[in-house]
């Protein structure tokens, strides 16, 4: 089983992004997904800059994938997707059917937002060139087992740690929270490098606003599900970047997979990230926010 790192979901400065990947290059993560997937306006780095970071990571032995925008709803987003798909160097993660369409023939990775829920759809995506798919967040162990036993032998990746994106819109929820329009957002997301917390009226941490995306406030954590992940033949566990400590998350999961750490040690390493709880509901076929024993 391999480890991967998802694209940075939040808006960080160029310097922060570069420093982050310099650090990541020294970790034992196997696969790194790079690029801006949320908002076209977060364009501190251009495609060439991302390819520069990709080359640096590849030189350190990482497999690098360039991830496409999830919402392609205008000319600028369409052009960015076309440029990405024509990069000619790195495989892309297609997060919208436009990227699948544009990749015709070239091998690609099918992202979680393509809605691959069953074996027939997986076969068609494989036919279109996918070599790996990231399972929709909602699919749990039973459903994935049913899918894996009937589907072509594509690599299967699932999110194993992080605050998952739950919903995607064209509206910028962060700008709206500041009474700003999307076109006049003044890059307010830069002020929220870990997202903007949404609590219920009972002060329970519930969601996180991230521009056009809504994330869960509680991290999903499948570290304790390792046996069932292996049983389901999951090939790759994905971790989401955190503003601080991502290298410790990677170390914890790497130690878990190699047997270098005991499960108790891993739980202790993850504890700073799960202080307000963690969830495994989706994997257990329950509501995603639940933590099932």
């Amino acid at each position, binding site marked *: 089983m391999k480890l991967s790192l998802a694209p940075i979901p939040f808006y960080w400065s160029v310097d922060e992004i570069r420093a982050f990947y310099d650090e990541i290059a020294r970790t034992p993560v196997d696969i790194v997904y790079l690029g801006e997937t949320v908002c076209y306006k977060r364009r501190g780095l251009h495609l060439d800059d991302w390819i520069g970071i990709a080359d640096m990571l590849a030189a350190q032995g990482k497999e690098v994938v360039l991830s496409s925008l*999830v*919402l*392609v*709803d*205008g000319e600028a*987003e*369409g052009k960015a*997707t*076309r440029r990405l798909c024509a990069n000619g160097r790195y495989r892309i993660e297609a997060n*919208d*059917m*436009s*990227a*699948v*369409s*544009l990749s015709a023939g070239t091998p690609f990775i099918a992202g979680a937002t393509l*809605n691959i*829920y*069953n*074996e*027939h*759809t*997986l*076969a*068609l995506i494989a036919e*279109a060139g996918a070599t790996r798919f990231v399972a*929709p967040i*909602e699919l749990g162990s039973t*459903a*994935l087992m*049913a*899918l894996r036993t*009937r589907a072509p032998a594509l690599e299967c990746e699932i999110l194993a740690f992080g605050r998952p994106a*739950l*919903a*995607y819109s*064209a*509206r*910028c*929820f962060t700008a709206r*929270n500041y009474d700003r*329009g*999307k*076109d006049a957002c003044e890059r307010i997301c830069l002020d929220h490098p870990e997202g903007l*917390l*949404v*609590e*219920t*009226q009972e*002060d*329970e941490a*519930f*969601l996180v606003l991230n521009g056009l995306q809504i994330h*869960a406030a509680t991290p999903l954590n499948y570290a304790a599900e390792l046996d069932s992940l292996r049983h389901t033949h999951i090939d790759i566990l994905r971790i989401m970047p955190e503003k601080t400590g991502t290298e410790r998350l990677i170390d914890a999961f790497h130690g878990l997979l190699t047997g270098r750490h005991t499960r108790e040690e891993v739980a202790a390493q993850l504890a700073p990230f799960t202080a307000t709880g963690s969830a495994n*509901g*989706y994997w257990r076929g*329950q*509501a*995603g*926010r639940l933590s099932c024993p």
Partner: protein
Amino acid sequence: MNKPELVCPGGTSAAVEAAIDAGADAVYVGMRNETNARNFPGLNLDQAELVASIRYAHRKGRKIYLAINTYPQPGRVNTWERAVDEAVATGVDALIIADLGLLRYCQEHHPRVPRHLSVQGSATNADALRFYAERFGVTRAVLPRVLPLNQVERLTQEAPLSLEVFGFGGLCVMVEGRCALSSYATGVSPNTCGACSPAASVRWEEHAGERRVRLDGVLIDVFQKTEKAGYPTICKGRFKTRGAVNYTLEEPTSLNVLPILADLVQAGVAAIKIEGRQRSPTYVARVTAIMRAAIDACVRDPLHFVLQPEWMQGLSALAEGHQQTLGAFHRPWR
């Protein structure tokens, strides 16, 4: 002059007939199971009702579209394929599908029945639409409620299929087909089970003169005695951000495109859809009649099309929270 079809919701046989009598060109319906994205108790049609509805529609020269637009679950794909076979046997005029595998099944087994891409298919650009048209023979796509008018206009030029847009009713703020908020709270979502915010998960509590509403454990909103309480969905709930309680994602409001109807007609959209298979026949009849009158007037003389105040008043009375919006069609909404 392009004349868009008026496509109306038929959650029950009575609603189908009400829509047709009020002037719908087509009515979209679902079967009474998990294969459609409005899988609520008491809604949708069984086989006999579907046959009767099609007979009623065809007698009056109208059409019935069948939505089989949830994502087939692994190992149980044949439930959705049987639904397609049954629907085709009844003589539906088109199938509304979201899943790639199911689109291919329809293409191979029932090539002559037109395939529409459901809004749950999340297609928002020409490249994605081309993919569905070229590989799956899709002839019409329903656009997610997240696109500005200029993008809709561009897509009618660039996309190799016809386009259907939402015109009135409930407003999904999220890209349809890409929202797991409901399953995060309850385990049930539109993609997997065909339901958002399922009634079985809703709990109302009286508490110190307030009414609190929960989705399973999660507090969605708190209403004062004098406030009108709508159906609780996470996207229209009130939460706390930066110390203040507000409608964090969207207010309770309905989409209404009448102010830009002439633009949509001139752009060449093929159909305008009314949301609301969960609505009563009376509601469906009223909205249908107003939209029928407006589309007819607009097509008759688009340059001199004037929005009639009674249409807007009539729709306002039927809108969620009596509020209406152009949604994403109007760029500042975003």
